[in-house]
């Protein structure tokens, strides 16, 4: 029992307590050097977070995260099914090919996406060679490149938990359903889908929650039209004109939103198992 104490103390001091300080900042008043003024109290930071421009950034982040989750699920499910059920001898290789991007940093993979899409990149070179275009296309810095980068980065986070579910599929149940007269679609909807539900839920959480606060992808691949809430927070702390109190308020809202959604979600997930990495 005592073995767990050091971890709890550590997470208390370096994870939970800092959030209390963030709460204090979010309702505090600071001087021009972002130092808290004793006794100051305001809710104006939360109020301005809900104003036009900032609220739109919130909505856009939620929308991009949701779209990323759905696209990753739709794109990843068949691949996870193939790896888990049909890949046979190629299974280890296929798994390794999913694990490698899962283990590589978002930053490097996002940069790799830049190197593919920029004006001098491979796609433009191929199109130029084939005489399909005369001038290189601006494939970067638009909402499309952000979505592409999001799906590209998060796809392994969807495929791995899905695979954990498809791998356990009992194929004889599918055969039973079909021999009892269910067609492919019906067998899929009534047997495969419910059995892989833990993987779908786990994958969706693993993609959606971090995606809401994503910074690197929209920052490196996005233009000014697809700013996400992660960038809003970053700018408050990493630029000289930023406001730490406003950044804290936005951050608290993100955490509250994410934890709220997760609590609702977790009621439907089988404990622990669905998350096994």
């Amino acid at each position: 029992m005592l073995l767990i104490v050091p971890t709890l103390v550590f997470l208390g001091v370096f994870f939970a307590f800092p959030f209390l300080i963030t709460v204090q900042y979010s309702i505090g008043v600071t001087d021009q050097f972002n130092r808290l003024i004793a006794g100051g109290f305001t809710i104006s930071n939360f109020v301005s977070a809900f104003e036009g421009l900032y609220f739109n950034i919130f909505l856009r982040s939620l929308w991009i995260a949701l779209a990323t989750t759905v696209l990753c699920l739709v794109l990843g499910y068949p691949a996870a099914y193939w790896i888990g059920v049909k890949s046979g001898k190629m299974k280890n290789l296929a798994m390794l090919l999913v694990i490698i991007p899962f283990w590589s940093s978002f930053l490097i993979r996002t940069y790799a996406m830049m190197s593919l899409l920029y004006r001098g990149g491979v796609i433009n070179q191929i199109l130029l060679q084939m005489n399909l275009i005369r001038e290189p296309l601006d494939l970067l810095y638009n909402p499309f490149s952000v979505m592409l980068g999001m799906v590209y980065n998060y796809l392994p986070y969807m495929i791995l938990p899905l695979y954990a579910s498809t791998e356990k599929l009992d194929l004889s149940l599918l055969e039973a359903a079909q021999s009892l007269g269910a067609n492919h679609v019906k067998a899929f909807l009534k047997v495969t889908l419910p059995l892989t539900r833990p993987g779908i839920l786990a994958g969706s959480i693993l993609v959606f929650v971090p995606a809401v606060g994503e910074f690197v992808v929209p920052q490196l691949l996005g233009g000014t039209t697809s700013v996400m809430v992660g960038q809003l927070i970053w700018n408050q702390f990493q630029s000289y004109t930023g406001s730490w109190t406003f950044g804290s308020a936005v951050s608290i809202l993100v955490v509250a939103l994410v934890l709220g959604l997760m609590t609702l979600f977790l009621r439907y997930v089988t404990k622990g198992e669905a998350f096994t990495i």
Partner: protein
Amino acid sequence: MRKFGDKILKSYSVFVLAFLYMPIFSMVVFSFNDSRLTAAWRGFTVRWYIELFNGSDIWTAFYNTIFVALVVTAVSVILGTATALAMSRYNFRGKSTLDGYLYIPIIIPEITEALSLLLLYVWAGVPLGLMTIVLGHLTFAIPFAALVIRSRMAGFDRSVEEAAQSLGANEIHTFLRVTLPIISPGVIAGALLAFTQSYDDFIKTAFTRGPGVDMLPTTIYNLARRGGVSPELNALATIALSVSIVMAILWQKFSSSK
């Protein structure tokens, strides 16, 4: 009909896997391309790698990043093993709640954690440096290590420990000679994960490093942000990526031999 469907499924999956590798492939190939401006192939060269390492900053960034990752790995393996042992052996009140809480530092958007750490350090007056980065990384590395080690501990047969103790081994002896060898694949897997998480981390590193502390991810970010795509950065990112690939291969080795 069925065979045909399987073929479509297979080609589709190969396409998805190819999608995961196209950008990486392009980056690696063109780190060897003898052209500064575009991806049009102008012949093989390693000069970008040589030019890269002529700058001393890159060496410092590498050294710092590896140093931080090793310290993070050591601490999270020790605390993660202790946590995993406690959680797999004892039933106590609030255990399942605690189980859920361990996931929060892993899953929560990292930037919210990063800024709260910065505020903590400012509040406590701690000067930013390598140690503040280490402490920041540990909040996700310890839970990661604990969860991985615990999942590998499932099915652990405690009667062998009891046997050792009834034969006269004390607790420390039992742990070192009996328990540790049995759980070591899980411990190694936890160490690999902790190392990679720290090595790859950008957001927390950016918030908790002091001014002038060069780290690999922050160097890559600054170059990409300021100069966009360049052959030197292709080379740097390729080297950085190769470490992650080695880690992923080791991970698969250890997790498939359970």
